[in-house]
């Protein structure tokens, strides 16, 4: 079984969000980057579990510059076999998807995993785009997945429920919480990761269909209004007059 896991980097959840004066650029000086949690915790680990059960090869792919290599090594330490980095700084999700789709087409994978979204742009676009470029089924927001011969049976999140879906391999999957449990790389994994291949690939040309005008921070909240815990009537008044929910 040949598995591809798409990994992206994102600022750590606790990072301060600030932008350049003209609003064009996220200020990332001193910001700690991490592997996107949905990619690392759920997509990658489920791929490893499938390899443990059925055997095969797990490749990870990342679109980014050399500063990402340390994070790519972490994915290798967790259990991927080989890594590929497409050497460019992507401006949007279509660029990422186009690069990955081209690579995936040339290397014919059975399953292509992505996280359900990155925690910085929250777009949920890449997986859906890759599936379209490759013209294969897309199982979105998948929280459980089993393989039965050449078929995938997956439980996928809907508003207020789940759908149990079946598709023929190859498929693209986006991973949600529940698909697997986070794994921490062990010492052997970290040492082995240094010897595993990390190949750098030149990007293909892409075009821009959307342009960033500027980033913007939300208006600062006016501050919390505290209510004395014994003043139940005041709470009721807030529910009635301010929140207007009774």
């Amino acid at each position, binding site marked *: 079984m040949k598995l591809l896991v798409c990994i992206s980097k994102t600022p750590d959840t606790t990072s301060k969000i600030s932008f350049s004066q003209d609003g064009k650029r996220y200020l990332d000086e001193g910001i700690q980057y991490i592997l996107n949690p949905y990619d690392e915790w759920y997509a990658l680990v489920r791929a490893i579990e499938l390899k443990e059960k059925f055997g095969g090869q797990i490749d990870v792919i990342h679109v980014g510059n050399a500063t990402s290599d340390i994070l790519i090594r972490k994915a290798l330490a967790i259990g991927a076999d080989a890594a590929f980095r497409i050497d460019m700084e992507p401006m949007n999700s279509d660029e990422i998807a186009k690069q990955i789709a081209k690579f995936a087409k040339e290397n014919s994978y059975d399953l292509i995993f992505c996280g359900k979204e990155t925690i910085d742009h929250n777009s*949920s676009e890449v997986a859906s785009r890759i*599936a379209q470029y490759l013209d294969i089924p897309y199982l979105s927001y998948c929280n459980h997945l089993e393989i039965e011969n050449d078929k995938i049976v997956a439980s996928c999140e809907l508003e*207020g*429920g789940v759908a149990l879906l079946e*598709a023929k391999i190859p498929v693209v999957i986006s991973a949600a919480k529940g698909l697997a449990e986070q794994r921490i790389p062990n010492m052997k994994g970290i040492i082995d990761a240094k010897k595993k291949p990390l190949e750098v690939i030149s990007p293909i040309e892409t075009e821009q269909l959307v342009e960033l005008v500027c980033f913007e921070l939300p208006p600062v909240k006016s501050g919390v*209004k505290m209510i004395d*815990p014994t003043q139940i009537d005041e709470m009721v008044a807030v529910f009635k007059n301010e929140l207007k929910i009774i």
Partner: protein
Amino acid sequence: MVLVILEEQNGRIKKSAIEAAGFASKLAQLSGMKVCGLCLGRTINVNELTGLGLDQIVQIEHADYLDSSQWISIVAQAKEQLGSKFIVLSNNSLGKSISGGLSVHLKMGLISNVVNFKSQEGVLQFQKSVFSGKASAWYAFSDLNGIIALMPNGFGIHKFDEKPIDSKVLDLKIPEPKIKLLDRKLIQGKTPLTEAEIVVSAGRGLKDPSNWYMVEELADILHATTACSRPVADAGWRPHHEHVGQTGVAIRPNVYIALGISGAIQHLAGVNNSKKIFVINKDPEAPFFKAADFGVCGDLFEILPKLNEALRKSKMN
């Protein structure tokens, strides 16, 4: 022409689709275009749609599950036949499974998680929510047409003067599915969290799952949907689909009531776009108070029963 996807459930148009129709109509007003709704599934009574700002409706009766590739093909055909410049849809679970693919298929730009738009020096700009709602980014389409996927509960519901809607027939072909639906499990009777106006949520401060009835009580009084923090879901007190936060569901209700939740940054990432936040916590240092509009610092077990009682009385009067 602006094409808006109207998702239905049990023959009724979904709340997220009403929001999308309102956005499409406002966008059409500003750019002098007409709006056409596209509904696949059970037929909707056109009288239900008159206040949404629509000029036309295309309905395709289709009882079975449609997978993402089928949706993409049908929406693309409709777009081509109508000559639409913009496609508007909700970025709910359907939207997330098709909007990227639609953008690739039609070679149109996509701006997702949009909460608002404006016209600046004649150029339409769309506000996208980023960094889990801690910031936004304004985007424009390079060639003045594109796909806009709306963050649920972001733009809000807008009502329009009632006007007659033309039913239009298009020659749309439904391709073979790539995915088979085996089963669908929906939680009955409750508004899904992403569509809820009022959410009552509780965390570890509740101490034991047997205390959950107090949360349900408040939710019942307010006709709210219940949610929980990650530790509560992980401990199995509540089902995972009720977990709101970074790795759970992200929501933007009108009112979010947090009971015994400290407000760690990962939790706030899922709820900080709520329009108003009301927090009860016994720890004065709880970070949630910094993100809240109203706060009560005290013991949940003393406050909540009295509050529920008082709210019930107030409702009866």
